[in-house]
């Protein structure tokens, strides 16, 4: 049974049909990529999966349970977390604090424990801090935990966003153009990190334009164009699928 | 029944006064999403300018004209000197709010200085230019009628400028999306300053009309009436011109009816009671547009 199953999900803004009855699935431990030209509806699909938009029709199931009517908070609690296409970090907070905010959903001690610094607070806060440091070290930001998030270079900020998503103990991580703005060395380092995540049992859905990253790391690829699913399959099949190439290069498409 | 009609008539006159001031708040809020706390003190400044020019033997008409222009310039200066640098530095919105509070301190207390007008209340020439009109035993003062008429003319002129002129188009564009407007060649800073200028003029007109009706002015006159007019602007849906007018009339009439039946000291906070009720039911006011925030 697939970890995540989308059945003919549709999203309509007034007259505009942004996503038109798209279906796809992701199995546990897989890395699936979602590609397509700009404006194909990729980020809209992410927003539908994470509850930012309430889908017009169709159904989404995660671990067998329906999630398309749940609030974003409930969806994160069930184990799906995400990064953003245009970087939404907490700029004036330190890197480690950004990741600690990620651990918020798993924090058990309450407001009064924090206020009175009870042993329960001390124990759990230490655990959370260590977990955050471990995540940051594993992604290569071990020495930058005290930096302000807004002071970091672009590539590092991307990594902090990923670290923050991991900190929510999510099972499924949605990465929205993580390699955008990264130089080749950084995207190579990112590939290594994503593989490491997969080895640790995370399932990943990737939106990416850098074909080098996509072809190299994806187990399966779905291709979206103008809100419709036009192709899916293994990387090599997609690489020479005429429809995909045309969708990217533009030009007439026979109806 | 008659007292009810009386209350409604008084409410309409008072409401039109609020509308006049609310328009200024609404225009500035529309363009900048900013509560301009200094607007109330510019309203007082306008009234004092008229008082001053009349006291140096300038005719009533010319005193009003000069006061309107001076208030417009003052409002523009406030924007140019205090608010524009903040916009250039993209500083946090709270900084602009506090700046307007600071400016209102400066203007209000500046008027009350010993060397200027002192804090004592002053008499103001009446605008009862022609005898009152009697309906039954309800008297409608001529200054009420003048206030109504001039207010309608002013609002017509303002909505003509906003809706029909080129500068009006760029005002509406800046209101929708300042960045996009500036990309289209609209000099947004000029438009914002012009909006402040219009706001200042409308405040001076309001100051003249209302002071002509009550025939008394004081440096702090802008405080309470300013807050109530702002509540009216929000009730009507801030950023929308006719919203301010309807909001002003609603607040004015409800306030007078409340004063009539619940006692007069309920009247000041009544504007806020209406405000909170409406904000909870319709967060953007009666006619406000729902802003869709894109992810």
């Amino acid at each position: 049974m697939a970890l995540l199953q989308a059945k003919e999900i549709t999203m309509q803004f007034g007259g505009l049909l942004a996503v038109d009855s798209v279906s796809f699935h992701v199995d546990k431990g897989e890395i699936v990529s979602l590609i397509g030209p700009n404006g194909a509806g990729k980020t809209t699909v992410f927003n539908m999966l994470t509850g930012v938009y309430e889908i017009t029709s169709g159904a989404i199931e995660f671990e067998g349970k329906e999630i398309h009517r749940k609030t974003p908070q409930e969806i994160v609690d069930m184990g799906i977390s995400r990064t953003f296409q245009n970087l939404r970090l907490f700029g004036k907070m330190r890197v480690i604090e950004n990741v600690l905010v990620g651990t918020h959903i798993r924090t058990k001690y309450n407001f009064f424990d924090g206020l009175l610094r009870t042993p329960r607070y001390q124990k759990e806060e230490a655990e959370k801090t260590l977990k955050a440091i471990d995540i940051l070290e594993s992604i290569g930001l071990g020495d930058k935990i005290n930096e302000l998030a807004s002071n970091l270079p672009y590539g590092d900020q991307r990594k902090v966003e990923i670290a923050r998503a991991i900190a929510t103990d999510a099972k499924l991580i949605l990465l929205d153009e993580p390699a955008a703005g990264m130089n080749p060395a950084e995207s190579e380092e990112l590939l290594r990190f994503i593989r490491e995540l997969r080895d640790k049992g995370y399932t990943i859905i990737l939106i990416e334009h850098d074909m080098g990253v996509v072809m190299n790391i994806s187990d399966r690829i779905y291709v979206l164009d103008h809100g419709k699913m036009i192709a899916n399959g293994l990387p090599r099949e997609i690489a020479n699928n005429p429809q995909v190439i045309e969708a990217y290069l533009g030009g007439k498409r026979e109806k | 029944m008659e007292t009810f009609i009386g209350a409604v008539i008084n409410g309409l006159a008072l409401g039109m006064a609020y509308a006049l001031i609310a328009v200024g708040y609404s225009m500035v809020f529309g363009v900048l999403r900013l509560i301009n706390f200094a607007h109330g003190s510019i309203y007082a400044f306008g009234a004092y300018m008229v008082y001053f020019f009349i006291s140096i033997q300038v005719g009533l008409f010319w005193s009003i004209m000069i006061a309107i222009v001076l208030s417009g310039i003052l409002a523009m200066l406030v924007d140019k000197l205090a608010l524009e640098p903040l916009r250039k530095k993209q500083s946090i919105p709270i900084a602009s709010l506090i700046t307007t509070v600071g400016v209102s301190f400066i203007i209000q207390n500046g008027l009350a200085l010993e060397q200027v007008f002192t804090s004592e209340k002053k008499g103001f020439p009446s605008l009862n230019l022609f005898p009152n009109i009697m309906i039954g035993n309800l008297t409608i003062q001529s200054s009420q009628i003048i206030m109504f008429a001039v207010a309608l003319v002013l609002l017509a002129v303002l909505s003509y400028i906003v809706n029909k002129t080129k500068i009006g188009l760029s005002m509406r564009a800046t209101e929708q999306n300042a960045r996009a407007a500036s990309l289209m060649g609209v000099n947004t800073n000029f438009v914002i300053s012009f909006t402040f200028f219009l706001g200042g003029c409308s405040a001076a007109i309001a100051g003249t009309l209302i002071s002509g009706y009550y025939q008394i002015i004081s440096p702090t006159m802008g405080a309470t009436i300013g807050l109530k007019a702002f509540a009216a602007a929000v009730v009507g849906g801030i950023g929308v011109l006719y919203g301010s007018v309807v909001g002003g009339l609603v607040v004015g009439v409800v306030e007078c009816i409340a004063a009539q039946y619940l006692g007069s000291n309920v009247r000041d906070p009544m504007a806020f009671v209406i405000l909170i009720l409406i904000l909870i039911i319709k967060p953007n006011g009666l006619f406000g547009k729902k802003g869709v925030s894109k992810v």
Partner: protein
Amino acid sequence: MKEKKSLNLLAPFESFVDKFKVPLSILVGAFLIAVPFLGASRVAMRNLVMIFLYAMLGMGLNVLLGYVGQVSLGHAGFYAIGAYTSAILTTTYGWSFWTGAIAGACVAALIGFLLGLPTLRLSGTYLTIVTLGFGEIVLMVLRQWESVTNGNYGIRSIPVPELFGWELTLSNGGFYWLILFLSTVTAIACYTIKNSNAGRTLIAIKEDELAATMMGIKTTRYKILAFVVSAFITGLAGAYYSVINNGYIEPNNFVFNYSIQILSVVIVGGMGTIRGMYFGSALLMMFPQVFRFLNQWRFVIYGLLLVLMMQFRPQGALGWQSTLPYKLPRRAKKALAEREKAKTVQ
């Protein structure tokens, strides 16, 4: 908004204070406690008490404005609710001062909760307008509900706090220690709230509410929490105000001007910081006295100060971004040290 170069000049100062914080705090603690014995004049004592009270009020509003970024222009309403609730309970129902004060703070917190609920669907500016309305409505209730609040006559002879038979008044310095202790406890509470899960969550909501939602934070619940905590602290400060006002309070002590004063403490001192509250409060209390000779000009200059401050130091006098490394919890530091040792042994 990029931090200016001036930051590095503050860094050594901050690390100095951080390094010697234990001796420094003992020195300060001893000095503050000893003030009544150092022959401070009654005026200086009263100034200090007012500074601590307004620092508390600033800290209360700071939870809402500094942490979660909501501007309130009606905080004098909570200040009044705290003062009147404890005054009524102690004078008409004979409660002790202490239980009256706690009750005052709780009633203010409850009303903070009620005010927080419906208004949280509103974005920043509209919420500010509603808090403005809240302050005016509280005033109306105080003036009209004569059977309970005694209307404009105000409430007289409110009892003074008593500890084991010793009356803590302004004249015998007892109240000075009480306010000193109370404001320090509030400061520590604000510090622990800020540096815990709740504090980080509030600041995250201020930085980017959508990102916070996507991290699973129930933003509405935490905004209400901020309202309640802010109202509690402001109400608590209100309960102690009557002692400073010779056991008498009236509606005019809580008019709109006081909401602006509390806001100025937070803005001028430095939003989001606790040290800023003390500085903002000291500046606000001493400004009118030091510049008394200016008379009417004081307010014009005060307005100018606000405008200039927003131009050149919007983050407030002490609002600099801390340059110190993140304070790791003790146990985490211990675990990391052990890990380090384990690595070097291999």
